[in-house]
C-alpha cells in the first residue's frame, strides 16, 4: 500500500474505531454514570430529535440563530460600508467599536434578559449584539482599505456610485467580510445556547438544562450531540457559501507568482 493510501486509511479508521470502541465498551461494565452507553444515547437521540421535539425545541433555537445572524449581517454590512466610506467618522467612532467588540457578549446576557424579558426577541437581540462586531469591524476595515489602484480605476472610468458599491467595493471587500461572517456564526450559536441555558422556556439549551435538573444524563448527551451536529452542519453550509463567493479569490491567489 502506498503511503497516501495508508494515511487515508488511518484518517478514516481511527475515528470509526473510536466510535466503535465507545459503542462496544459501553455495553460492558466500563460505563460510568456520566458517560453512558452509546446505545442508550442513540436511543434517546432518536426518540427526541427524530422528530418528536423538533418543533418545540429545535425550531426556536434555529430561529434565534438565523434571525440574529441575518440581522447582524445586514446591519454589520450596512454600518460597515458607511463607516468604511467616511474615514473621519470611522476614526472618531473606532475606539468605541473596539471596546464594544472586546466586551464578553456572554456577560451581557443577564442584562439583556432583564432588558427585554424572556422571549425570542431577547434571544435575537443578544445574538445580534454578539455577532455584529466581527462583521461590522471587518467590513469597515475592508471598505476603507480597498486597493488604491482599484479605487483609481473606478474613479477614472467614472463608474456610477451604485455600481461602485455593488460591483467593486463589496466584492473587493468580500474575503474579509466572509471571514467576519464565519466568526459571527460561531458566536451566534454559542450565545443562543448560553441564553437558553440561563433562562428559557424552550429550545435545545433549555432541554439540556432541564435534563440536568432531572439528572437525565442520556438526554443531556443527546442534546449536546445535537448541538455539535447543528454546529457542524451550519459550518459546512457556510463553507459551501464561502467556496462559491470566494472562488475568484482562491483562483487569484493560487496563481500568486507568475
Amino acid at each position, binding site marked *: 500500500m502506498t503511503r497516501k493510501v495508508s*494515511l*487515508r486509511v*488511518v*484518517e*478514516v479508521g*481511527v*475515528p470509526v474505531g*473510536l466510535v466503535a470502541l465507545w459503542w462496544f465498551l459501553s455495553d460492558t461494565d466500563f460505563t460510568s454514570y*456520566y458517560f453512558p452507553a452509546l446505545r442508550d444515547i442513540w436511543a434517546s437521540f432518536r426518540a427526541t430529535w427524530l422528530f418528536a421535539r423538533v418543533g418545540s425545541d429545535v425550531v426556536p433555537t434555529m430561529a434565534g440563530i438565523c434571525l440574529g445572524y441575518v440581522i447582524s449581517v445586514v446591519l454589520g454590512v450596512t454600518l460597515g460600508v458607511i463607516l468604511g466610506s467616511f474615514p473621519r467618522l470611522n*476614526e*472618531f*467612532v473606532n*475606539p*468605541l467599536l473596539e*471596546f464594544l467588540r*472586546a*466586551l*464578553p*457578549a*456572554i*456577560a*451581557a*446576557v*443577564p*442584562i*439583556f*434578559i*432583564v*432588558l427585554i424579558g424572556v422571549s425570542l426577541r431577547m434571544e435575537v437581540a443578544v445574538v445580534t449584539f454578539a455577532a455584529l462586531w*466581527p462583521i461590522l*469591524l*471587518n467590513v469597515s*476595515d475592508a471598505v476603507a*482599505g480597498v486597493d488604491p489602484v482599484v479605487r483609481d480605476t473606478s474613479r477614472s472610468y467614472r463608474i456610477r456610485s451604485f455600481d461602485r458599491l455593488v460591483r467593486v467595493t463589496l466584492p473587493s471587500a468580500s*474575503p*474579509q467580510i466572509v*471571514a*467576519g461572517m*464565519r*466568526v459571527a456564526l*460561531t458566536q451566534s*450559536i*454559542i450565545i443562543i*445556547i*448560553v441564553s437558553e*441555558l*440561563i433562562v428559557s422556556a424552550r429550545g435545545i439549551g433549555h432541554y*439540556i*438544562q432541564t*435534563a*440536568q435538573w432531572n439528572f437525565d*444524563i442520556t438526554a*443531556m*448527551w443527546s*442534546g*449536546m450531540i445535537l*448541538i*455539535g451536529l447543528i*454546529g*457542524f452542519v451550519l459550518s459546512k453550509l457556510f463553507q459551501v457559501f464561502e467556496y462559491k463567493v470566494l472562488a475568484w479569490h482562491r483562483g487569484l491567489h493560487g496563481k500568486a507568482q507568475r
Partner: protein
Amino acid sequence: MVDRPEARASSAVKVDPIANHAAGPGDGGGGATVAGIASGWQLRADSLVVRRGALLIASLLMWQIAAVAIDNGAFPTVTHFATAVGEVVSTPAYWVSLGQTVAAWAIGLCAAVLVGVPIGLLIGLNAVVDHATRVTVAALQAIPSIVLVPLMVLIYGTTLQMKIILVFIAASWPLLMQSSYGAREVDHLAKETARSYRLSRVDQARYLYLPSASAFVATGLRIAATIALLVTIGSEIVTSAPGIGLQIQLGESNGQPDRAFVYFVTASLLGLLIASAFRRIERLALFWHPAHRARQGR
C-alpha cells in the same frame, strides 16, 4: 476573534494649510485675531486627545439617555453606576469574585498550553498522527464548549475545579490547531538550508522549528486567552459558580442593576486587558516572522 489587519500607513497629505479648513464663523471675514483663534481651535480640535474625549462624552451621554428612557431596571444610569463603582470596588467581595474568575482563567489556560501545544506540535510534525486525529479533532472542536457546562456541573459541582476543566477543554483547541500549523508551516527553503548545513536535530528544533512555531503559538495563545475568559464568565453565569459572572447574574435578578453593571464593566475591562496584552505578545513573536502576517486571517 478575527484579527484586523495592521493599520495602513497613510500616504503624503497634500498641502492643506490649516486656515483653509472650512472653519467657523471667524474665517475670512473677521480680523487676524479671530482667524487666529479659529485656526488654533481647528488645530487642537484635530488632536487625538480631544477626539477621544469627545467620543467618551458622547458615549456617556447616549448611555445616560438610554438608561433614563428604558427605565426597567436592566442597567443603571451613569450617575448610579458611578456611585456603585465606589461602593462595590471598596468591598473585599469584589476582589474575591475577581480573583475567582481570574484564577480559573489562568489555571485553565496554563493547563491548555501544557497539553494543547505539545499535541499540536506533534500533529504538525508527524503525518501519521495528523491523519489519525484529523477527523476526531475536527468533530470535537466543532462542539461549543459552553454546551458541556451542564455535564461539568453534574460531575464537579459549581466549583473552581469545574471551571478550570471547562476552560482547559475550551482553550486547548485553538492552541492545538495553531501549534499544528506552526509545526507544519516551517519555510521549506529554511528547512533545505538547515539540511544542507547538516544541522543536528536539536539545533534544527531550536533554530528552525521553535521560532516558527512560537509565532503561531503566540496567535493561538491570544485566541485561547479570549476564549478562556468568555468560557469562565459564561460558566459562572449559567451555573452560578462564584465569580464575576455570578455577580452579574445576581445583580440583575435581584434588582440591583448598578451592581451588576460594575461587574459587567469589570468583565469588559478584563477582556480588553487580556486581548491587548496577548496581542502585544503575539506581535513580539511576529516581529521575527513577517511571513506570518499573511496568516492573520485565520
